[in-house]
């Protein structure tokens, strides 16, 4: 099956300034592309714009949680911001506080 490849857009040039914008649908089809995209950004700070996200499924959540842990372990900045109230509700439904994806205090400190 053809996978959706347009998972995120990058609008920056250097890693430090680059901000990834997540696509609206983060379902199973998006999990592998998302993983590939994040993998390509390992080693640098990462800011992710989640304002376009309309829905998030369990597998993309796993990818983001694992990435968050990896970035934290790498002492790099990992920030996801802009979740809509609806997505926040979904995350809470899945037992996740959205603040968990905000590592500015930890990494910027």
């Amino acid at each position, binding site marked *: 099956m053809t996978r959706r490849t347009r998972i995120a857009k990058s609008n920056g040039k250097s890693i430090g300034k680059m901000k990834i914008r997540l696509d609206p649908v983060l*379902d199973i089809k998006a*999990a592998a592309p998302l993983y590939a995209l994040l993998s390509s950004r390992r080693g640098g700070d990462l800011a992710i714009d989640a304002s376009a996200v309309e829905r998030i499924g369990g597998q993309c959540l796993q990818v983001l949680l694992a*990435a968050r842990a*990896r970035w934290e372990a790498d002492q790099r900045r990992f920030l996801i911001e802009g979740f809509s109230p609806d997505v926040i509700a979904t995350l809470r*439904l*899945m037992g996740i506080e959205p603040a968990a994806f905000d590592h500015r205090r930890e990494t910027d400190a």
Partner: protein
Amino acid sequence: MDPMAAIRETFFQECEEQLSELEGGLMRMETGETDQETVNAVFRAVHSIKGGAGAFGLEDLVRFAHVFETTLDQVRAGRLDPSASTMRLMLRASDALADLVRCAREGTMPDEAQTTSLAAALKALTNDGMAEGIGAEDDDDGLGDLNFLPLAVAVEQETMPDAGWVITFRPLAALYANANEAALLLREVGMLGPVSVTVDTSSLPDFGDLDPEGAYLTWTIMLQTDCDEAAIRAAFEFVEDDCDLVISRAADRPAEAGLVQVRPDEDAAGVVADVRVLDGDEAAPASSFADIPSDADVLAIIRKAQESVSAPHDDRPVAVGGGAVAPVAAQSRPEARGGTDGPASRSDSGAAVGATIRVDLDRVDRLIDLVGELVINEAMLSQRVMEAGLARASGVAAALDELEHLTREIQDSVMAIRAQPVRSVFQRMPRLVREVAAMTGKQVRLLTDGEGTEVDKTVIERIADPLTHMIRNAIDHGLEPTEARVAAGKPEEGVVKLTALHRSGRIVIEVADDGAGIDRERVKAKAIEKGLIAPDAQLNDEETDNLIFLPGFSTASTVSDISGRGVGMDVVRRSVQSLGGRISIASRPGAGSTFTLSLPLTLAVLDGMVVSVAGHTLIVPLSAIIETLQPQAATVHTLGMDARVVAMRGRYIPLVDVSVALGYRDAPLDADKSVALLVEGEGGVRAVLIVDAIQGQRQVVIKSLEANYRAVPGIAAATVMGDGRVALILDVDAIVSVTRTERLRGDGLRAEPTLSQAG
């Protein structure tokens, strides 16, 4: 068939069922049945369609279904009053949804203006007037009122009933691969009561080792509910093989601090409402979220389709009496799917779902054909045995009796496979009524009764057109305009009633209206004007009413100004007759008309009287025969040149010599030297049919003469007799109508081609 195409086709078949359920449910809601079960059934119908559509990337369908579903969810949550105007809008939305499904199936473009308009109207209901276009970028803003709201009062944990459950839910990768989604399952659980959810990420590997399509998270759900375990398991019904699920009582587990708690409302009802808020929050983003929500339904669709696809797709005959027959006959009786079960019942009646299978119709048709052959062969064997002069008490005769009994049983069982409630046809009619009512500017209420009445699928398929025509006529021509109704002291809203019932081994369908009835004077005047009857013709009410069935009487341009009926009724009658049925009219001036269809339950077999006519063997349908008699010469009277009648119990019944009517003979037999059958045709019109001899009664397998030869006037079909010869089945209505047409128009069947070629 391409597997994907098969799956897609299965989805559309499912859609048809869901749309029927949807319309039926909405109709019930319109009449005030707004109980939770009905509303849930309606909701799930739209939800299922949306889910399947999402799986197939049918974006237009998904978007509209989502808006529709959201509105229904508001009703379900008690936030939107299902008022008459709301229900009217929802019924229109149901029509639009059906259109979108049809367009998706046919690959055509939907009426975007209509769906946009309806979507906006639906949104206006839920958004307090904030209407938006369906395709708007911020489409989901319309769901903003489903967001979390700050709630002032929280229910203390201690005050919660001691009815909690702890659910540990660990999806396997297959769960996601099968298009299910953990979030949605959590949502399903949340619909049972307030939930607190924690996620265990301890199994999550390092990012570098992560399989993005693996499954590593485990959720623990604290659920407060009075529901039993079965209800909770039902939420996981479609994924039970794709997850680890442990459900236990929470009686001795204290509420855990730090959990994400869904905030309850002020009171018990509010607690439920709050879950719906959660539900809405999750669903809210979902004009494109839509392909996830009904994962369970999608899975069900795909599983079903996979079953049918993976089964050997051989159109070759299945062996009668072999293993292939039994499972089909045993498992797919349609009534198992009937009753009031709607989509909502699927989740809590898994056993019922498992009791049915979807079978390629070609296979069933082939099976029916084969059973038909079996019946014929049994008849031939029976005849051979009889010819051999074996005693009835002999072992062979006894075994033959047993075979006959068994054959009949098999035939009945096979026929039952194809039996379906007429509901599927009836449920198409509300939309028709709405459309015709809108076109004519009349207010119409459709009442239906006997939707569960079962009839063979072939009959169901073919009665839809005549019924559609009749209902359209009932509204367009039967019901008076509103002003006229008011002036006549009637309610503004006209009533069209559609009824089905079994009667004497046939299905009887009535279309009744409370309109003005047939304007007989005007019908008669029109018939004279069209040259269909003589100006001085003396017709009784029944004969006058039946004029509307005459070809040539009724074209739109000629009768549009007649406040009776007429448009296409000749077509209707032909359709009904081609089904082996009859149509009759009962009309009362000022009080309305009732059209009655009497149809065979199946088009496959027929109980008939075997008769001899001029050396030919004919079958007269038993259902048309009232009695057999031997006319006395004194009771036969000649009218005019050659018309004859038989005096019977104070009435004169037209006498028809079948051999002459069919062209076998030129000169009629002497009635007193023949055998006569008193038969009743459509509208209760009686005639005495003269035949040479009666051979006996027999059930025969109907073979289409039209398909195998050509249509022959006076002949309904053909069959194969026990001796292997073809016998023709008489079209009693056509024969009986000879008398009427002779009297009305002076011609009869004799002018038609004879059967000499077909004999």
